């Protein structure tokens, strides 16, 4: 502005927010079970190398203790788990263990 009538020197400096302006939703954590007795444990492999080694061992240990185990795998470790897979795990299992192996 070249005119003396438009005084930017004393005008409030206002910026536009460059962010997504999201208000983070707070989702409460599910209650932790006191005991694993009688529960079904989901084992989710994100399909990184050797995740199966870790989960095979866990499955053995959990089965020895008489727990039911369900095995799941993401199609690819590079993308979030598909919503149907998440829904199936939530429906069938009481808790889930995810293998972030490499």
């Amino acid at each position: 502005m070249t005119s003396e009538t438009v005084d930017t020197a004393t005008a409030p400096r206002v910026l536009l927010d460059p962010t997504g302006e999201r208000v983070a939703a707070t989702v409460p954590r599910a209650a932790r079970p006191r005991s694993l007795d009688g529960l079904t444990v989901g084992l989710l492999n994100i399909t990184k190398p050797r995740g199966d080694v870790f989960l095979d061992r866990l499955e053995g240990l959990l089965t020895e203790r008489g727990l039911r185990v369900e095995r799941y795998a993401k199609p690819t470790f590079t993308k979030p788990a598909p919503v149907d897979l998440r829904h199936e795990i939530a429906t069938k299992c009481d808790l889930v263990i995810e293998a972030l192996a490499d």
Partner: protein
Amino acid sequence: MNGVELRDGVVAVVKADCPTCRLVAPLLSTLDVEVVSEDADAGLATSYRLGVEAVPTLVRLKAGEEVERLVGWDRAAWRSFTGVADLGDDLPQYRPGCGSRTQDPGVAEELAVRFGGSQLRARRVELGALEDEAEAIFDRGWTDGLPVVPPTESRVLRMLEGTTRAPDEVVGVVPPDLVHCTVEKVAINAVMAGCRPEYLPVVLAAVEACCTSEFNGHGLLATTYFSGPVVIVNGPVRRAIGMNSGVNALGQGTRANLAVGRALQLVIRNVGGGRPGGVDRATLGNPGKIAFCFAEDEEGSPFEPLSVSRGAPAGASAVTLFAGAGVQPVVDQLSRDPESLARTLAVCLRTVAHPKLVIAFDALIVISPEHGRVFRQAGWDRARLLDELTALLQLPGSELVRGAGGIAEGVPGHLAGTTLPKFRPGGLLVTHAGGRAGLFSAIVAGWASGETGSQPVTREVGT
């Protein structure tokens, strides 16, 4: 009229430094008109809202609506407009007006902010009187670690002049927070990155490409791997916005290259919420994650434009996004035939990620002009070079299996008797850029490839 009270009757808009306005000033004082000067704020607001482009302008209002307008001095026209038969006998017959102050360079956007009732929706963040602008932006976590241009409303409005798209149009859903990103939000981040308005369509195309499921911007951001989006630009827009495809094309020093690449990264950071240490889990990262954007040298290339080879129309401007992990030099100063030079590229490509790992990683090859000349003189096009490289990169499983060469890393042992390709089909991109001197090319190693990771995506640049 956005709050400006205008009475019915005739308004005359003038400014002090217009000779025609001064010429008609005595006459205006004798007429039943409301004289409004652009030299005062209120007059400037009125002029802006009436859309006055030149002064003097007479506007007749009836029931709050404009019914008649006259620009400049024209005795006959003024007589007819005012109904005064002997008006201005002592004045020349005709004098053109001067440009309105609302049309001065850079003023229109300021006036839109002050008087226009802005259409922009972003939250306004007012800075304290003693706050340093650059520091305030750092404090809010909006930068990549370097200072940015403060995104004031007038700058964002100027940026939006670079596109025909509406500010509220959604460009894409930006990972990792999956936020619907509008043209306005891209423009804000483009201002911060240092873009000029004419870069905006290129940034918009890059954001669009990044938000596709094929490109998988979410995984690319979240990975522990080095990679980030690399933007390769084709078509007339390269020259139109002054992009560099020559000397130091992948380096510093060219505003358009850096600002476009940086704008994309700022959109991911600010709109998508993707920040290092948050969803970005890169072990080391690479400097290209600040900005990695360059133009292909189409004119000197032995190959057709990269975008055309990927399905974009010839002559159209386009961006191609590749999930790249940094620059690996290829030196060959002795090969003068394409077979030898292809073998050099192949042995260097074999080291992408690890010489014993195959198929999992893509690569982008940037052929420089002096290496490109070898292929051109031999009549090799892109397809021929890719065929040769594919043949040279069929690797014996016995060299790749875990433990081979005394190295634990490698493919599972049962593949020892097989032959494996270094790259998946379509996993190599070839482009052409660089200065005229230097028998060097570059490999930009990729990330997890194909459907399990990221696929290159090409998008046309719109308006």
